């Protein structure tokens, strides 16, 4: 084959490979959906999503407890993580000296690389007892410590590096000249950040938060180990919960033993997939959309 022939053939093969990634996403969604059809056709969708009756033995599949568990744990994590991460990102991009930045950034990258199971055992060793013996008694509440709050704390730390690194990049992309203008008008550093930098970067910062949220929704092992895994709609943050990923991880072994049970678990996976896909597209599309509007 001559050189032009090699060129054509190679790219033709690779194009097929690239197209098959798109196909992979559709395939995963398709397989999970087709597996969910039995449960979707035998239980009305409103019951699936909004009933909290979870009795697989009797054929009652209400996902409310799991959806509520996922949302509460994720929200808890975001409440802790968003302010801390954003303040850290602002500090690193606007205030910190080169030396501090160069010392802190590698540590944040390292935090991003720690396996989730390590966060899980840390949660069991440290967070769970702390919540049980220190935090809960302050509110006069009895808890095992395996609860929404513990899972939220562990998850918040896992989300730190994602929000920090994306937000910091967005903040640094704000043109120097805008800051100089604000300083020349007599603004303090914080006033510049508040009125100029954050305003300019707001959409990107929002995208960083959404990306953190997506990561938190699907996190399995660390949450599974500290959240208690009780199928109930948690009343307070000191109650145990049972998020969707834990449901799949704990029960895949028995899913063939009951009718519709496998279908129910695949429906749970489908819900996760759709939620994550929606939020990711939102986070990636939003900044560009808004930039186009502003032009």
């Amino acid at each position, binding site marked *: 084959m001559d*050189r032009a022939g090699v*060129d054509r053939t190679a*790219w033709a093969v*690779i*194009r097929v*490979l*690239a197209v098959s*990634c*798109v196909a*992979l*996403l559709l395939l*995963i969604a398709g*397989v*999970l959906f087709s*597996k969910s059809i039995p449960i979707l056709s035998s239980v009305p969708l409103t019951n699936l999503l909004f009933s909290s009756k979870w009795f697989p033995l009797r054929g009652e599949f209400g996902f409310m407890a799991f959806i509520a568990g996922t949302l509460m744990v994720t929200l808890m994590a975001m409440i802790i993580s968003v*302010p801390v*991460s954003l*303040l850290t990102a602002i*500090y*690193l991009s606007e205030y910190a000296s080169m030396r501090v930045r160069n010392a802190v950034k*590698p540590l944040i990258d*390292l935090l991003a*690389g*720690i*396996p*989730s*199971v*390590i*966060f*899980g*055992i*840390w949660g069991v*060793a440290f967070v769970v007892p702390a919540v049980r013996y220190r935090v809960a008694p302050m509110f006069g509440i009895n808890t095992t410590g395996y609860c929404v709050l513990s899972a939220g704390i562990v998850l918040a*730390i896992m989300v730190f590096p994602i929000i*920090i690194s994306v937000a910091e990049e967005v903040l640094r992309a704000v043109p120097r000249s805008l800051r100089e203008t604000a300083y020349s008008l007599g603004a*303090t*550093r*914080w006033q510049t950040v508040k009125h100029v930098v954050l305003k300019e970067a707001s959409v990107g910062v929002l995208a960083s938060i959404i*990306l953190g949220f*997506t*990561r938190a*929704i*699907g*996190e*399995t*092992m660390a949450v599974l*180990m500290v959240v208690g895994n009780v199928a109930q709609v948690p009343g307070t943050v000191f109650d145990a919960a049972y998020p969707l*990923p834990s449901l*799949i*991880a704990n029960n*895949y072994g028995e899913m063939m033993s009951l009718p519709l049970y496998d279908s129910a*678990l*695949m429906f749970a*996976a489908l819900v*996760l997939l759709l939620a*994550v*896909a929606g939020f990711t*597209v939102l986070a*990636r*599309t939003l900044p560009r959309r808004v930039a186009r509007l502003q032009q």
Partner: protein
Amino acid sequence: MKPSAVEESLFRGLMILSTALVVGSLLAVFASVAFKGLPALSVEMITQTPKGGYYIGKEGGILNAIVGSLYLAIGATALSLLLGLPVALFLTEVCGDTRTASYYRRVLDVLCGVPSIVYGAFVFTIMIVLRARASLLYGIVAVTLFEFPLMTRAIDEVLKKVPQRLRETTYALGATRWEVATRVVTRQALPGILSAFLLCFGRAIGDAAAVLLTVGYTDNIPTSLSDQAATLPLAVFFQLATPMPEVQQRAYASGIILLVIVITLSLASRWGSKKLTRYINR
């Protein structure tokens, strides 16, 4: 003090506090895993497989899980590189900045965000259809699926940074696109590709959710792709789930081993890409 100065120092204080909290939480994780695990850490942990009664506190180690994790991560990461590098080259060298490229990137971003448990569930479903049992092979497939989009996007970002004039110079010499991609762009991006590889390797070693559903668990070292395999995260998880305090302590010791591997990879990626960067054209 003026109100603006008060606000300034208040927020500066909060920022320093937040940064300290983030760094502190990293140190807290290291410290409490080390504190709990060090007493149980021994040479046998990394040189022996579990002996009879290991899970009630008798002798043995977790060599099975260490080797299983390495097999799994090497297999999956090599496969992802094999798939990811060509796709990344296709995006930067053929699609360029077109709309097509941004659609592909969007799809890859979605795939990057899909939780590993969903990949696990997907492969598990395929296994049921094929009537296959859990094995190293399906573990590698599941981990490859979730690692390959990460790898592709990471390499894609590296390739974008290769200076355009290098490509143009090579085209001017009469090279085809394929030649430019393989002989110039890939070589220029080698340090970045190495970091992407090590980053993904770390992810593969640390993943537990996709593997939980697909790879099984065994006390033996796998000898073929159709064997079940143990992995380090699963070893940590299962040992902690036992009722015996001695075995639970070994979960933390296994955690230390896992952490040491992950940190070494992270340092190697930093050092390696710095070292290699000397040889590339800027």
